[in-house]
């Protein structure tokens, strides 16, 4: 039985370590400025926990095997513990766990405590059951006011704009795809129309809940062009699994062209 434990735990350990190490399933290539540091912290955590995992599982299996009852009449080694050892591994665990977290705090600070660059492009993101819509402020750089009683999904007025009476709303551009230029700081203003949603782009390593009643700003800079999926990760109802939009990162020229095309479709 002890040997069986050892064998099974060795198998579990080896297979798991292999799958992690060979990156058989792995996060996609990061395309934002914050990406590499997040990935570095992730890899560091993986290695540390991997070492602990291997030692603990193999240790457990080995002990289960080595200290099996050999029916030789002897008693177990009587001991109530070892205070020095307790102290040692307590301190070691504390240092490793807390140290690991402290190392990573600067990444969190970069995400949330660095101010938005003044030339950042502001885009409003609105989540609703079960789609995202995006609003650009247009040439005047201002978002027009939204009116709850003017919202009409059937006519495409998802934000409740009153273009006839609010001058700031006249040039607002509402789109169903989030188009952004590459290498430019972007500030997203996240809001929700109905229930809780979330905004997640794996490649950006950006993830933020959309909370009804609050407008939450996040900012990032994309470093590569491409088309990426924005998925909802906060359970929002029966269409949660299907709620998604596309992030299109383009060169500056392509972005301008795209934006003009969107204006025509308003």
């Amino acid at each position, binding site marked *: 039985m002890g040997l069986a434990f050892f064998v099974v735990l060795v198998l579990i350990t080896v297979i798991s370590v292999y799958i992690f190490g060979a990156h058989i399933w792995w996060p996609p290539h990061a395309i934002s400025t914050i990406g590499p540091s997040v990935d570095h912290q992730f890899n560091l955590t993986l290695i540390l926990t991997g070492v602990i995992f291997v030692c603990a599982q193999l240790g457990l299996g080995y002990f289960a095997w080595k200290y099996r009852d050999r029916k030789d009449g002897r008693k177990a080694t009587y001991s109530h513990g070892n205070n020095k050892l307790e102290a040692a591994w307590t301190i070691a665990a504390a240092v490793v766990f807390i140290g690991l977290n402290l190392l990573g705090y600067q990444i969190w600070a970069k995400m949330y405590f660095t101010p938005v660059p003044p030339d950042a492009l502001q885009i409003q993101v609105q989540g*609703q*059951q*079960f*789609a*995202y819509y995006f609003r650009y402020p247009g040439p005047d750089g201002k978002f027009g006011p939204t009116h709850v*009683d003017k*919202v*009409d*999904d*059937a*006519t*495409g*007025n*998802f934000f409740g704009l009153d273009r006839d009476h609010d001058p700031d709303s006249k040039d607002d551009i509402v*789109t*169903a*795809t989030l188009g952004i230029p590459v290498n430019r700081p972007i500030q997203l203003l996240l809001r929700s129309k109905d229930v809780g949603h979330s905004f997640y782009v794996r490649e950006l390593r950006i993830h933020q809940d959309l909370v009804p009643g609050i407008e939450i700003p996040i900012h990032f800079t994309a470093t590569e062009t491409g088309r990426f999926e924005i998925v909802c990760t906060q359970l929002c*109802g*029966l*269409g949660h699994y*299907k*709620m*998604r*939009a*596309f992030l299109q990162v383009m060169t500056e020229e392509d972005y301008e062209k795209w934006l003009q095309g969107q204006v025509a*479709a*308003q």
Partner: protein
Amino acid sequence: MNKQRFLWLCTLVAVFLMVGCSKKEATTEETATTTEQQATPIDQATVGEVSGKVTFSGDKPKLAVIHMDQDPVCVQKHQGEAVHVEDGEVNENGTLPNVFVYVKEGAEKYTFATPSEPVTLDQNGCMYKPHVLGIMAGQDLHIVSSDPTTHNIHPMPKDNREWNESQPPGAAPLDKKFARGEVVIPVKCNQHPWMRAYIGVTKNPFYAVTGSEGTFSIKGLPPGDYTIEAWTAIGGPNGQTQDQKVTVGPKETKSVDFAFKAS
């Protein structure tokens, strides 16, 4: 001692009953009228007709393009053609399509048999077809999906029971009924927020929906005084209505026209 335990037992039983009863409440309120009503005999020799045109005056609303980006299946079905919002559409000749016209008052003294054929609502290219439909209370609404993507059908009535069900690709059609008359019930697909249909549920078979000519014709009306109402989605989230009174004599055809503005 025993009395105390007996009282606790009663309390627990009471809670069971409360839970049980509230459960039953939910399940009994549903049953829509499926029983064949005894139709009032109507002398077909004397029936008349109301027909007319619905016009629109003023600036035509600009119809936004519908972005179906989030679901490539929807985009594919339209093969590059831009799809426009339907509410606010005005015909070439200045008339309005998708206006629901029906007899609001004057037919209460008759009872009508619920038709056995269903009315079909299709989801095609991530749009409802038809956009506006009429159905009688208790008549079967047959909902099908021609799209290889999941839709959910969510009618939002005020006087009928609200329900919300998904139709994944390949799923069987749904058959639903509305128990009470209500004009109109908006229908939404939450998965594709731009989708909208309107269902006018009437207690009588005297209704019509205008088409690309903007005309309607309601036949089979027994002689009498009637109030005809026209509903259009133009003019905001609840649309607009207009009423007109008309008296139909035996075998008469009366003309009733409606004129709507932007709001």
